[in-house]
Structure formats: C-alpha cells, structure tokens
C-alpha cells in the first residue's frame, strides 16, 4: 500500500515523456495519469470541433486506446501532446468518414456544454465566442482551437492537421478575421 502511494506520487511528478516511457513498459498507473492529464483538454477540443458530446467522447476513448496500444510507436522527437492530438484528430477524421452521410461538422446541432457555471463578468463574451467558433468552417475551427485554445505552435498544428505550415497559419488567420467580423462589437475591434 505504501509502495503504491509512492509510485502514484512519482507518476504525478513525471513529465509527459517520462510517462510515455513508463507506459511503454506496461505501467498502467502511468497511463491513468496520462488520461487524467489530457482527457479534459482533448475532450474540450473534440467537443468544440464535433459539437456532439457522444461523438467527442467516443473519439476520446478511441484516442486513449490507441495511445496505450501504439505507445511503442511514439518517437521522442515529437512532443507527447502533439502525438496525442494527432491521434485524436486522425480518429476524428476516420469517425467522420464513417458517419459522412449523417454527420457533418458544419451542420450539426449544438448541444449544451457541460462546463462549470460561467463567471457573470466574462460569461457573455465566452458564450459569444463559443457560438462564433461553432459557426466557423470545420478546417478553420480545428486550426483556431489548436492555436488559440490549446496553444500549439504552427509547426505542431501542421503536423496534427496534416497540412503545410503556411496552410495552418492561413487557416488560423482566416478564422481570426471571421471571428473579428462577427465579434468586433463585443471585443472592441474596428473594421479591417
């Protein structure tokens, strides 16, 4: 019991790369820690892209299963976060291809967000921004979320969404312009 507590504490202190090494050696505690570390972040992005709670959760599950099964394919040359997001967005594309006749990323109904109650101070701006992001074309939406919400550099975004860096930048910038067009009056912007 004491030993378990010590291992758990160690795993919490590990960085992502160290966790991956432990997972490669079959350490399920390390895998649990990785799931805890990424499940909310990934779910947020997947939900905002797919706009469907169940779809996002299914893709999230497939992503973590792949992370566990394919951990030996992870190369330390990449950041763990980039690798996991790449798997997640691949899974999402694969899922959407299978569902193509009935599910479109640009035409799906909106579901209520399962988030903490919004702060009244900034709640309105967040809701407006969520709505405007939701209305973006799917490609722009993914690129914008990866850049401005998840904070990835353009090089990583290009790897995750499988496009040249220039295209990744272009998508993020077009998304920014579209958001400014819609939200300029709320966020204090002039006309470009």
């Amino acid at each position: 019991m004491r030993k378990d507590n010590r291992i758990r504490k160690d795993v919490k202190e590990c960085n992502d790369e160290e966790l991956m090494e432990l997972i490669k050696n079959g350490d399920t505690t390390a895998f649990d820690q990785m799931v805890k570390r990424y499940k909310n972040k990934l779910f947020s992005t997947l939900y905002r892209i797919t706009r469907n709670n169940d779809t996002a959760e299914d893709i999230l599950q497939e992503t973590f299963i792949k992370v566990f099964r394919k951990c030996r394919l992870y190369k330390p040359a990449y950041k763990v976060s980039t690798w996991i997001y790449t798997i997640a967005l691949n899974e999402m594309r694969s899922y959407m291809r299978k569902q193509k006749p009935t599910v479109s990323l640009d035409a799906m109904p909106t579901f209520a967000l399962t988030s903490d109650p919004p702060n009244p101070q900034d709640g309105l701006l967040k809701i407006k921004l969520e709505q405007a992001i939701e209305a973006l074309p799917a490609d722009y939406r993914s690129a914008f979320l990866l850049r401005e919400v998840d904070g990835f550099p353009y090089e990583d975004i290009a790897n995750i969404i499988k496009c040249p860096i220039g295209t990744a930048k272009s998508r993020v910038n077009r998304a920014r312009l579209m958001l400014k067009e819609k939200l300029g009056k709320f966020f204090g912007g002039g006309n470009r």
Partner: protein
Amino acid sequence: MNCHWVKEKIFPYLDGEVTAEERGKIEAHLASCQSCAEELACFKNIRTTAHTLDELKPSDYFEMRLKRRLQVTPKSSVWSFLWKRRLAWAAALPVLVILSFIIFRSSSSKPMPSLQVEADYYYLETESESPDIQYVVEKELSNGSNQVLIVPVLSYADKSY
C-alpha cells in the same frame, strides 16, 4: 509607415513572428493610429477569451468505460493478428496440400497419348537438351519415316510409358 503595412504584419506581430525592428515600427504606428490599435485590441481580446474558455469534461463514467475497453480488447500485434486467424490457416493448409497433390497426379501420372504429325523442319532442327527426346527423333529418322513421334517431356520421362 502606413496602415496597410501594419495590417499585413498584424498576425505575425500577434504571433511574435516579427523582427525587433518591425515590432518597433508597428508599435510606433499603433500609438498614433486608433483604427489599427482597435483592430489589434480586438484580436488580442479574442485570443485572451479563447485562452480562458471553460475546460469541458467527458462523462463521469469515461475512465471506467475506457478501462473496460482496454481489458476486453487484446493488444494487437502481427503475431496476434496471425494467431487470431490460426483456424483459417489450419483449415486452408490441408486443402492446399490435397489440391497440390491432385494437380501433380493429374499432370504426371496420366500418360499423354502420342501424336502422329507430319514432320516439319522445326521439330527436326530442334536441339533438345533431353537425350531421350533426341533419341526418339533420331530413331524415327533412321527408319526413313517422314513422320515424327512427338512425346511430351513429362510423359516420356516416365519410363513405364
């Protein structure tokens, strides 16, 4: 420094991808141009709000479902892929052996009938690597016949023929 140039540089500026010199020029322009300053402020505000968007959570049962899936689904590998198909391999192997045997028997044990044909120069000039075939051709010629007995190699190889 005009607004057009600054607007071209506004996203690289926002992303920290301009040189120190460019940054200085942009900031000098922003200090004197309200329109460009407002535009930059808008992009910055959108970014700040995006950074603070609520983190969403999957259902409470997510981890439990994930663990169950990991326990149920075996780890896939080349060997497990082949192992999963062991029954198919086991069934296919005897079938392949039997089929090979049947094909071999049908081509080797069944004697092919000899065929009497008009001799032509092609066959006469053929230099077979098989001494047996060579013997047949010469023998027929020594009999003064203008017909040649053509025997397939496999059939002739069988001495019982």
